[in-house]
């Protein structure tokens, strides 16, 4: 393990990679600040740039963007009550009231410190947990992998909220269906190409991610007429002091530590993600607080700001655990990173830390660097970065559209991809209007190929019998968890747990995280 850490450290402290962390955090912060654009869109927009980099630098850049976007989302939540992404919706509950009381500087600083704490604790646990889990998963067979993918996909549906389970399941199946378009990797036979040569290689995940997230988010904003909204004026001179008193630090320190641990654990669960972690941490902290502080929640409580901020950053780190160790993304954003790693020819999973230790460890270590960058560089610059929000929407929207379509075009140089993007975006808008979540579709699409390969191997080994699903205890255990995950919403409603999650799920359904 120490050799690996040393390899990762050597890669992560290479000047170019440090530059990538800094650039990633800055770009992420800026994109994350823009209302409507969250970490998924931010990471998707960066993918075309990373194709020109080596895998370690590319993934480091994307990890930086991820953190930056979550941090940027907090900034717009606090300053203008417009969360940049769903995981920072809770931040606005107490962050914006603080800003209205002339304590925007303190709120921003507290958000940054707690994000740092969450990210740091998350990165430290990841440092220990990821290799341990990866060593265990080296003994996994095709049937276990298939079961794990089923678990990942059902968990996404299970966490999708009240009344959304069927929709999430349908979207997952839709994603799996789209993944079957193109040449079958096992037999080499073209499927659903209808004689179109442009579909022989299938639909690229970048195209799908851009069309269903970056492009669709912007088009939805136009559809709702949000581009005509008056920009909220921001008075940067009245941010107030960024210093926290000793008493305030004492008050929020246990909250940040608790929420970080909790957030990490929630983040590890496939499909749960930063949004649910933030909502649950906020709820728990409100219940744990003494009556006097409890009454301040929603009116500018420091604990109410600290809990979601620590939790969402720790959860962002936690979502890397299933990605790096099992090859199963824990959130929509890590699903995009999985696609990017596969495009590099790297297969995330238990062999990643054996075959590509420099990627595995440098990502983990650069996460810590990312947190430091956010704290020491981004925080003092927030008043200046926020000025970029002044760019009028009629100028900003065509630019985001341009970056989304050019990002896809510059990878394939095929204008058919842009035409396909238009079609997929139109379909995505209609599905969004019908309240169908997009993240399960993307997860289904990305896991589709691997799932089919492992299912095929398992079925061939067991001579066509489905007994492989319960013959190995591990496969049986994972499949049981998958069934349990599917039953969870029904059980939750029967046992009366529904109340806890309704609000968080409603926001999480937007799919960012």
């Amino acid at each position, binding site marked *: 393990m120490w050799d690996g850490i040393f390899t990762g450290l050597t890669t992560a402290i290479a000047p170019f990679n440090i530059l990538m962390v800094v650039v990633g955090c800055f770009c992420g912060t800026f994109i994350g600040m823009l209302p409507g654009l969250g970490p998924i869109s931010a990471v998707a927009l960066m993918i075309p740039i990373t194709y*020109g980099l080596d895998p370690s630098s590319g993934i480091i850049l994307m990890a930086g963007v991820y953190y930056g976007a979550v941090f940027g989302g907090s900034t717009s939540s606090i300053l203008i009550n417009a969360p940049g992404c769903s995981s920072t919706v809770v931040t606005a509950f107490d962050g914006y009231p603080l800003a209205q009381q002339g304590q925007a500087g303190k709120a921003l600083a507290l958000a940054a410190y707690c994000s740092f704490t969450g990210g740091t604790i998350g990165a430290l646990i990841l440092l220990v947990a990821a290799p341990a889990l990866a060593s265990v998963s080296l003994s996994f067979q095709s049937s276990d992998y298939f079961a794990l993918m089923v678990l990942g996909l059902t968990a996404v549906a299970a966490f999708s909220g009240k*009344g959304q389970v*069927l*929709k999430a*399941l*349908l979207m997952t*199946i*839709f994603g*799996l*269906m789209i993944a*079957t378009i193109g040449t*079958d990797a*096992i*037999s080499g*036979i073209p*499927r*659903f190409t209808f004689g179109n040569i442009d579909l022989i290689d299938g639909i690229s995940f970048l195209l799908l991610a851009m069309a269903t997230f970056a492009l669709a988010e912007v*088009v939805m904003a*136009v*559809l*709702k*007429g949000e*581009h*005509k909204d008056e920009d909220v004026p921001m008075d940067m001179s009245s941010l107030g002091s960024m210093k926290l008193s000793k008493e305030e630090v004492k008050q929020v320190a246990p909250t940040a530590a608790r929420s970080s641990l909790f957030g990490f654990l929630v983040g590890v669960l496939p499909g749960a993600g930063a949004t649910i972690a933030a909502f649950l941490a906020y709820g728990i902290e409100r219940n744990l607080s003494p009556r006097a502080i409890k009454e301040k929640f929603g009116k500018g409580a420091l604990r109410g700001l600290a809990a979601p901020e620590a939790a969402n950053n720790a959860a962002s780190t936690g979502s890397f655990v299933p990605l790096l160790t099992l090859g199963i993304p824990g959130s929509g954003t890590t699903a995009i990173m999985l696609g990017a790693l596969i495009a590099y020819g790297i297969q995330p999973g238990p062999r990643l830390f054996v075959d590509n230790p420099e990627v595995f460890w440098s990502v983990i270590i650069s996460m810590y660097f990312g947190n430091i960058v956010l704290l020491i560089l981004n925080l003092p610059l927030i008043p200046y970065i926020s000025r970029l929000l002044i760019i*009028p*929407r*009629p*100028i900003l*929207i*065509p*630019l985001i*559209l*341009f970056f989304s*379509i*050019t990002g896809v*075009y*510059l990878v394939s*140089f095929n*204008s*058919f991809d*842009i*035409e396909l*993007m*238009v079609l997929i*975006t*139109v379909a995505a*808008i209609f*599905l969004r*209007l*019908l*309240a*169908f979540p997009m993240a399960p579709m993307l997860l289904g699409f990305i896991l589709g190929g691997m799932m*089919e390969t492992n*299912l*095929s191997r398992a*079925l*061939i080994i*067991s*001579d*066509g019998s489905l007994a492989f699903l319960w013959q190995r205890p591990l496969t049986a255990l994972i499949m049981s968890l998958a069934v349990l995950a599917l039953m969870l919403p029904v059980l939750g409603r029967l046992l009366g747990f529904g109340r806890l999650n309704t609000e968080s799920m409603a926001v999480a359904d937007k799919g960012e995280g």
Partner: protein
Amino acid sequence: MTLNKDHIGGLIFLTIAVVYGYFAHDIRMFPGDQFEPFNAQTLPIALAWAGGLISLVMLATAGRSAEPKPTLVNLDFMLVGKLMVLVWLFAQALSWIGFLAATILFLLVGYWLLGERRIRTLLLASIPFAVGFWLLLAKVLDIYLAPGKLWQLVLGA
């Protein structure tokens, strides 16, 4: 009976599953593949069945759903349609007039569609940006961007 979002969604996915399932049976296979435990049709057919069944469950339970009737008021479909046409035209323009000219036109029209009418802003936000981005791609990152068929026809280059 009024249709709510779940009814419409269920019907759409049922149609998708039926059409997908129909074409899944059309996937060609190598001789003897039909006797293998897993072939190119296995997963698509399973997905079609799963999609169809879940759609039916959705349709059956849609009446109890809290999902409201979809409302299309205050949604600017016209503008979105124009933007989508603009993106499609950008795709066509790339091969005819090249990346630089297509980008300038795309941005100019995009700003215009979204309500920007000041000529100075329109030009300043499109031409320098497009030229700078083109220089970055073509000269700094050394990415080949085809000049466009039209210029080749006109200039004979």
